[in-house]
């Protein structure tokens, strides 16, 4: 459904080139929930925004983003507009993404009026149905964003995302800033719309564990592992994946030593090498993406030819 090939997103800044996304390839299959996890600054949000071409002008993007046979990077802005919201929906982070001076109903109905030329009345009627399905309450349609709590606002954003019945939903940190009980409600919410193809970006590992079919781990602009979710949580392959899971309170709260490297001057070879307990001489070379029983990992540990 969505295929990303050798995607690179670079930002030119005064301090140097920031390689926010560096040679990333993966595919999202129809009907699955593909979740990218990683820490802030790993480039995962930039990756999502690159797919919808929402990045500022100073971003240099190359590679291919194939969606239903079309390369999104080759489309004009006008053609892209027809895809955003209708074919691919974007569910942003909740805090700042609603317009404070428009009522939520209008904001959710806008894609319907825009893409399907629906009149206001039928668009609103449909939004009321979606609101009720998501547990917001259809009578709140004329309220403004400030009248909603954080969890409710997230629901409104989900409603906005699914209103035009898109083929692919991209959600960026849907649980950010919510407390634990609200998070589990958002998990339920995403289960409800679970038949859709979804690309979820999050650093909330519990959220990923509950929803994902496949997990990709991003570190410092690179995807270091792609695994089916069940296998990933049973036995993560990449040392960074392991460190990430071990830092969960329920799995021992063990920090990963060291700090994330700068994106301007990342270490050569494996970017996790300086924090990795298994690092060897060979890790100074770029590790290949190794395929292992349907899983992918970018680490020299799994390269049989290099075992001593």
């Amino acid at each position, binding site marked *: 459904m969505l295929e990303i090939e050798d995607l690179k997103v670079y930002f030119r800044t005064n301090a140097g080139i920031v390689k926010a996304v560096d040679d990333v390839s993966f595919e999202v299959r129809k009907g699955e929930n593909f979740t990218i996890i990683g*820490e*802030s*600054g790993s480039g995962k949000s930039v990756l999502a925004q690159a797919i919808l071409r929402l990045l500022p002008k100073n971003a240099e993007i190359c590679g291919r983003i194939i969606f239903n046979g079309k390369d999104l990077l080759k489309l004009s802005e006008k053609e892209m507009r027809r895809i955003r919201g209708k074919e691919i929906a974007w569910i942003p982070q909740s805090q700042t993404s609603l317009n404070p001076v428009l009522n939520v109903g209008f904001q959710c109905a806008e894609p319907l009026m825009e893409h399907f030329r629906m009149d206001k009345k039928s668009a609103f009627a449909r939004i009321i149905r979606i609101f009720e399905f998501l547990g917001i309450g259809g009578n709140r349609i004329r309220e403004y964003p400030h009248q909603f709590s*954080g969890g409710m606002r997230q629901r409104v954003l989900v409603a906005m995302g699914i209103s035009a019945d898109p083929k692919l939903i991209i959600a960026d940190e849907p649980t950010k800033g919510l*407390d*634990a*009980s*609200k998070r589990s409600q958002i998990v339920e919410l995403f289960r409800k719309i679970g038949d859709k193809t979804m690309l979820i970006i999050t*650093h909330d*590992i519990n959220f990923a564990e509950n929803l994902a079919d496949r997990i990709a781990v991003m570190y410092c602009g690179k995807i270091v592992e792609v695994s089916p979710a069940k296998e990933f949580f049973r036995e993560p392959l990449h040392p960074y994946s392991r*460190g*990430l899971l071990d*830092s*969960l*309170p*329920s799995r021992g*709260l*063990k*920090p*990963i030593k060291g*700090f*994330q490297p700068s994106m301007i001057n990342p270490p050569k070879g494996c970017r996790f090498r300086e924090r990795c307990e298994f690092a060897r001489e060979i890790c100074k070379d770029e590790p290949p993406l190794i395929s292992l029983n349907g899983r992918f990992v970018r680490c020299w540990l799994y390269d049989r030819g290099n075992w001593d």
Partner: protein
Amino acid sequence: MIEGIGIRKVYKSGIFGGKAVVAVDRVDIRIGECETVALVGESGSGKSTLGRILLMLIKPDEGRVVFDGIDLTKLKGKELRRIRTKMQLIPQNPEEAFDPRWKIYDSIAEPLRIHKLADSRKEEEGVILELIKAVGLKEEHLDRYPHELSGGELQRAVIARALTLNPKFMVCDEPTSMLDISTQASIVRLLMEFQKKLGISYLFITHDLELAKVVADRILVMKNGKIVAEQS
């Protein structure tokens, strides 16, 4: 160590105070020496208000806060300020905890300057350098502005600032909810390490029950301004 007895706080709104929200409703809480008590609950349950009342940053409507045998609610401003050196807050969002126009060094030095604890510039520098290394930052960080540090680095700087006055009691108000999980692990480990070394009591406010289980000696669950459950 620190005790809150029958604490109550009501917020009134509307012209005649017609709408009242009971943020904290007659709560008794006790935190012993070197103990960590976790306070968990949903947002809006009153846990942050309770934490701030124990620090006397919010005045309770009813009840007493007793710290080391002294009733803080009866103290005047000056005496209270002296006692406050022993109590610190680690806030939720480190980005809001620092003055954006000040360098990290000045922010960390401020408590020393206010309480006149360093006799010379040199002594001040010595104290700060030692602290900054203890929390895992480098000397170069001191010369930067808050926006030039990552969330995890800033939270370390907040901890350094809180430690300048050798506190005995700290309220950690969701210190890691804005941070990544691997950063969370290192910040929480850092706080626990200092507790062992310096003998600090913590009130650890969080909404993550799993985290509370790892950190705390006792867990209190708060709902609608009341403590509804305790688990040790």
